């Protein structure tokens, strides 16, 4: 039997490194779209906690750690990044592992780089660690998660990975060219 070689979305595009800033691809074992059916929010959240020790987040928030993270992704919709989940009764679940291109922008100037592309307020007081937003990255829609003081995870459509890398590369270049 022949075997199929998997390619990651940012294959050949990332990492980008300038000084202390690094934009690198994150490969998740699985990305599961999870949508509790009507009236099932609590039971689904409990079932998720039982599987990965992470409850469902409230809107515009993410829960969990780098190993397994649950992110609000829309009304009654979540993305779970981490190991594949076993089916949860009362929830619609769809494998989206290949659908998203995931990268992290890491470094003290991460917010400055994102300020070139993301139109929302990223100040500490408004977008703290654990906050998440469906927003824009340049002309693309994205899911943005603040995972640490100077670290943001960005999810974009796989088909747009090339454009995302191009936009991030341009912002990175220009911010670092300003110096300090």
């Amino acid at each position, binding site marked *: 039997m022949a075997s199929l070689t998997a390619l990651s979305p940012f294959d050949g595009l990332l990492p980008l490194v300038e000084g202390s800033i690094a934009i690198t691809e994150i490969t998740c074992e699985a990305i599961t*779209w999870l949508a509790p059916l009507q009236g099932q929010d609590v039971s689904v959240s409990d079932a998720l906690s039982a599987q990965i020790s992470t409850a469902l987040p409230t809107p515009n928030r993410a829960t969990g750690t780098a190993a397994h993270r649950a992110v609000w992704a829309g009304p009654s919709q979540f993305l779970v990044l981490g190991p594949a989940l076993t089916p949860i009764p009362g929830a619609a679940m769809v494998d989206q592992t290949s659908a998203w291109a995931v990268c992290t922008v890491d470094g003290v100037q991460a917010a400055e780089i994102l300020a070139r592309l993301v139109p929302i307020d990223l100040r500490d*007081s408004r977008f703290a660690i654990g906050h998440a937003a469906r927003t824009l990255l340049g002309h693309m829609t994205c899911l943005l998660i603040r995972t640490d003081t100077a670290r943001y995870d960005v999810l974009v459509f796989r088909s747009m990975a090339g454009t995302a890398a191009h936009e991030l590369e341009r912002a990175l270049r*220009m911010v670092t060219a300003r110096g300090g």
Partner: protein
Amino acid sequence: MRIEGKGRVNRDTPLRFHFNDTPIQGFQGDTVASALLANGVKLVGRSFKYHRPRGVMTAGSEEPNALIQVGVGDGMLPNVRATMQEIYKGLETSSQNHIGPLAYDVLSVNDLAAPFLSAGFYYKTFMWPRAFWERLYEPAIRRAAGLGEMTKTAHPAENERAFAFCDVLVIGGGPAGLMAALTAAQSGADVILLDEAAELGGRLLSDGEDIDGVPAPYWVEDMTKALAEAGVRIMARTTATGLYDGLTFGAVERVGAHLPAAPDLPQECFWRIQADQAVLAAGALERPIAFPDNDRPGVMLASAIRTYLNRFGVAAGQNVTLFTTNDDAHKTALELLDAQLDVTVLDSRAGVAPLGDYRVIDNAHVIGTKGRKALRELTYRTASGSFKLETDCLGLSGGWNPNVHLTCHLGARPIWNATVSAFVPADGAVKGLHPAGACAGNFSTEACLRGGVEAAAQALKALGKRVRRPDLPRASHDAGATSVLWSVEVKGRAWLDFANDVTSKDVRQSAKEGFRSVEHMKRYTTQGMAPDQGKNSNIGALALLADATGRGIAETGTTTYRPPFTPVSIATMGAGAQGKGFAPERLTTSHRAATARGAPMIEAGLWYRPSYFPAPGETHWRQSCDREVTMVRNAVGVVDVSTLGKIEIIGPDAGAFLDFLYTNTFSTLKPGRVRYGLMLREDGHVMDDGTTACLAAGHYVTTTTTAAAGQVMAHMEFVAQCLRPDWDVRFTSVTEQWAQFSIAGPRARDLLNFVLDTPIDDATFPFMQCGTVSVHGIEGRLFRISFSGEHAYEIAVPSCYGDALYRDLVARAEALGGGAYGMEALNVLRLEKGFLTHAEIYGRATAFDIGMQRMLSTQKDFIGKAAATRPGLMDPNRERLIALKPVGAVKELSAGAHLFEAEAEATRVNDLGYVTSVGYSPTLGHFIGLGFLQNGPDRVGHHMKMVDHLRGITAEVKICDPVFFDPDGGRARG
């Protein structure tokens, strides 16, 4: 000339740059204007219309005269204000708007023709003959009335755009702005302070005042430090250019424009700043005074003379005269005196005494000037007669105009305040924007400092923060007395708008000809339309208009203030949007493989899809397309169909949801089966079509067309969230998750069974079957559906395997005599079968029009049902779907052509229909097409005339049934 001991330029760092190829020596911190003045260069440009010699008039962004070109070649930028461009080593600048050397501009003959070139001249003169305007007059006039040259290719330097947010935005770093920022920051607000100059301070750096007993520049230094320590984000070289809804500001930052070119450093950054509250501390601009020949090089604003002296250590002249209506210019006189320069003050008021050892002539009005390329002499008039005075620099001071611009950008009008003889912001002009200091009409330094604190206090209260007021520093309370003088009444051309060459005579002419409204006067004379947007002339012009029409200034009012406050290049606003930044590129997983095979791409929405795959020896796309079609009909072809929208729908009410969305029924679809569906808009017209597969009970995957994927998703969200929130259904797009390939042709199953771990046959996988399969050990999905009429499948694997599977399928297909095919062949294949795309269901077609009225279920409700069954949408005379083929001497069909009776004239009134899609069918050996024709199905078999007026094609065509190939569908099922 440089004055020792004055100025803030760094005398330890001399810098050399070029103006019109002449080396000019300046210092770090100089602008082009200050360096030119320091070197005695007075003539820097030619005026817009009359090509009169002009020099530097101001020291700020309002400069109307000293517009220069910066850079060379493709990197040249015209209309840069010399007063804002900081010098750097290697800077190349040149004057603009002249033919031949600047000093001997050929076009200065325009000035001799001035009596003919007054306002309205073009409108009256160049009307006849009509055709001459575009071919002769306009190009000639544009050549003469220029604002620098245009480069032919894109500027090589890059710009950027960025977003910023703050609790309080403070615009302007003068006394009011500094105090506002300090107050807001020490009260706990997150503050951005921006100023358009290179350093904070505003006029405090120009005016030689003391604050708290120390020279103001020292106080500014301490404040700048204090602000930085308080966490204020200071943005120097940044101009707030516009105010938009919700306290969103546009601002332009000069990032690299003042530095030698550096890799990756943007020239400018266009900021969108969202503020919760804002303080406007934009200051005020000095007014010139209109009198004959007040535009010679050497005539400046008095405040600019003071700025050049104190900020740059430059004397704008040796023998300076000030013509003033107010006390402020006398301060300038004292400072010039202190710098050992000769000063005379001509004051329009009576009974004015000098403040020091300089000559004051009171009750005096300047009535003329002399000097061809620079001011040499002026004539003034007093009660006792006219007198001449030798002078090389004349400073004008007609009072101050507050910079109210941003308070007006949302539609408010400023209010005339007779006490300060100026327009000031209307109370509450913009909610959340608090004007402070000179821009609010408070001119003394103390009033500015206090105004800044109070404006910040208002902002902080609105934010619900406790106000911690800083101590108010000691400063001058004296704003000085002033009187009003707009223009000196003497015969001759007195300039109001220096940038657009508009004189007081033009304004009076406008009133005389009936253009009495200030907006009409502006358009008639072009006053205020130049790059400076009338900063130096609007108020003076409307005051003259008020006088000429016998109205008051308040009654006359101002023209509309619109963004931007200063010119913004389109390149900066659109930064990053060229080339790859124009729009996202969506690439399929097979993109690399297709590109490697030399396939040209066509865009479908944001997607890039291969058009065709040229084989060795093929020189025309039609050769490739014909070969690919024949290949699919005879062997097997592979095409990437991942771009089609795929939506997974899950939940107990998923079936009901689909029944409501589609005209036909899906709740009865059994797991493992696929059905074609038609979706209408609420207005009864077709929105989209596609197949839906039932993967399991209450679990479907719906496909949309590539073009309508987003629209259908939004439609579904609307239905689920607004129309039927009671239904328990969840759905998400899986378009990106699956790489999906169509395998079509008589040998499709042979190819498929090479890659499936468990082979299929007709019994296990009949037409319109779907299911989960194992593809080289990877779980995938298989759908037996056909868009070509052939025995065909669509196979899907997670996108990460798309590249590998596509390459594998194409290689194996080639071994079977098949291969990859592209969009051109796909289009021909579907045309042969009469299948539709958005060329046919393009928004105006109904189910009835495309012959699918039988799909409108009578057993249930669905979106668009009521509208679709209206008599008007079921009228047989509507333009309805037909196919056509050429039957005359001309063998070509053309999409976009119209259809006429064979004998009728091809005119609009005889138009019976149109052609939507055409292609050459190698299977049938002739062109085929689809189109819409009145009463179409009833005309099948008729001969008609097809005319494409644009391409000049006329062909005799036969109207046909839409299905040309395999009408009973045996090939797809078999």
